[in-house]
């Protein structure tokens, strides 16, 4: 967990549930959620991995890198490490400080005989998770473990990842095996994946 004071950056788009339609607004019901999505005209295609990376403060990037490290570390059921996911959300708390909420480790998955792997969906500290007033970044780690049979876990965002894109947030997959960062939205991967090294340096 980390906190730092960083000035909020403008959001690329937002969602709300009132009636004030405007250019670029459209209503969708996603999995039963009735949402008005606002897409600034002419800006939606301007997102680049570099631009998105620049919106993430260094302190948050350190936590994201730590999530990769933790995915490779042993857990109770993942004895060697590298076969479980990590998940986190970064955003601003009520005082305007950046806060990172990390989830507990996801369950161990052996890609030789397990068909999928997922985050735990359970925050390490619910109080920190609940303190985020303005979420900005959602990330999770795709583990890098490979079995002797040559099986591993998908590295780019999966179809479910894309379908579960959180509107208005920076959605990122940290591909531990490829050592790359994928930014994505519901329509797919945004640009080319960034090398983890470049992401951390930006």
């Amino acid at each position, binding site marked *: 967990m980390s906190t730092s004071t960083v000035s909020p950056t403008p959001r690329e788009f937002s969602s709300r549930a009132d009636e004030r339609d405007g250019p670029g607004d459209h209503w969708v019901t996603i999995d039963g959620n009735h949402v008005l999505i606002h897409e600034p005209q002419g800006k939606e295609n301007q997102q680049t991995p570099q631009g998105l990376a620049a919106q993430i403060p260094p302190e948050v990037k350190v936590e994201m890198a730590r999530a990769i490290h933790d995915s490779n570390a042993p857990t109770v059921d993942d004895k060697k490490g590298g076969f479980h996911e990590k998940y986190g959300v970064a955003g601003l708390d009520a005082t305007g400080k950046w806060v990172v909420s990390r989830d507990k480790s996801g369950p161990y998955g052996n890609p030789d005989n397990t*068909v999928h792997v997922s985050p735990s969906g359970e925050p390490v500290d619910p109080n920190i998770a609940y303190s985020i007033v303005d979420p900005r970044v959602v990330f999770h780690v795709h583990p890098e473990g490979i079995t002797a049979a040559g099986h591993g876990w998908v590295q780019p965002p999966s179809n479910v990842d894309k379908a579960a894109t959180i509107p208005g947030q920076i959605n990122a997959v940290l591909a531990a095996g490829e050592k790359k960062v994928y930014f994505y939205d519901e329509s797919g991967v945004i640009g080319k994946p960034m090398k983890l090294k470049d992401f951390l340096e930006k």
Partner: protein
Amino acid sequence: MINHMPVRAGVLLLLSLLPSAAQQSAIVNLKIIHNGRPRPVPDHINLSFDDHSLEIPVQKGKFEVPPEFVAAPRVTFETDVEGSHIRLSDIAGADFTDEDWTVRLAERANDDYYAWRGPKTARIPSTCMLYLESIHEEPGRVYFEEHCRSKKESAGKSGTEQQVKPAAPKVVRASVPFYPSLARQTGIQGAVTLRVSTDGQRVSAVDAGNGPPLLVNAAKENVKTWQFEPHPPRSFEVKFRYRLLDSKCDSECKCGSEEKPSVVLQLPANVEVSAESLMLCDPAVEIRHKN
């Protein structure tokens, strides 16, 4: 939550609930709007209360609510329209008046979205509690616009009763509340209490009492869409309850829960929103590059 009562079509076990001589049946005009266009109405609807249920034919867009149902305090209305099962519960029987009921359906546009092409708001009577549910995935979630103004209410309550306890402002228009996606993904649930002030017709201020911020924000955004029948400005408390349904993913990463998401509106005091957890699911693959 509302119990799911099995509907036994055609059962007429209402002898013990014979209508009083004074009670009259109600004729309801039923309209179905799908994708903004009128659609054929079903040939029957089901009404039930307690453990009694009745299949009622719909003829020329109208169905007749028997007196015993008009007299019942809580009635459930159900029908199937274009693949979606529509269920509207906890209707006061007296709310079945000779008014129009309009049911609006959302349409599934593609694999990822349920695009809503109809009106963005529903007229929601404060006297009714709505239970919105779609049992089938196709064609999508259901959305209601209906009118169930009570004859009793139209007639007006006694002046004494109104003086003793001022009626809560009546909500005439509101957006359907939603469960924020991020809260669904991060397992955030719980109750939110808001203090709402009105200017006599619209919400003039909303003060958050307590609750997770993500949910507080969603609740506040929803409350801001409420509109009321003209009334003296006042403040009142509203409680939102957000509940996540346990979800699991199958071998093909199709994730969901056994229980269906729902929205229960008991305006202006209580709102309950349940939704499936928004799961992530990443498949195993063969890694082609050399170790």
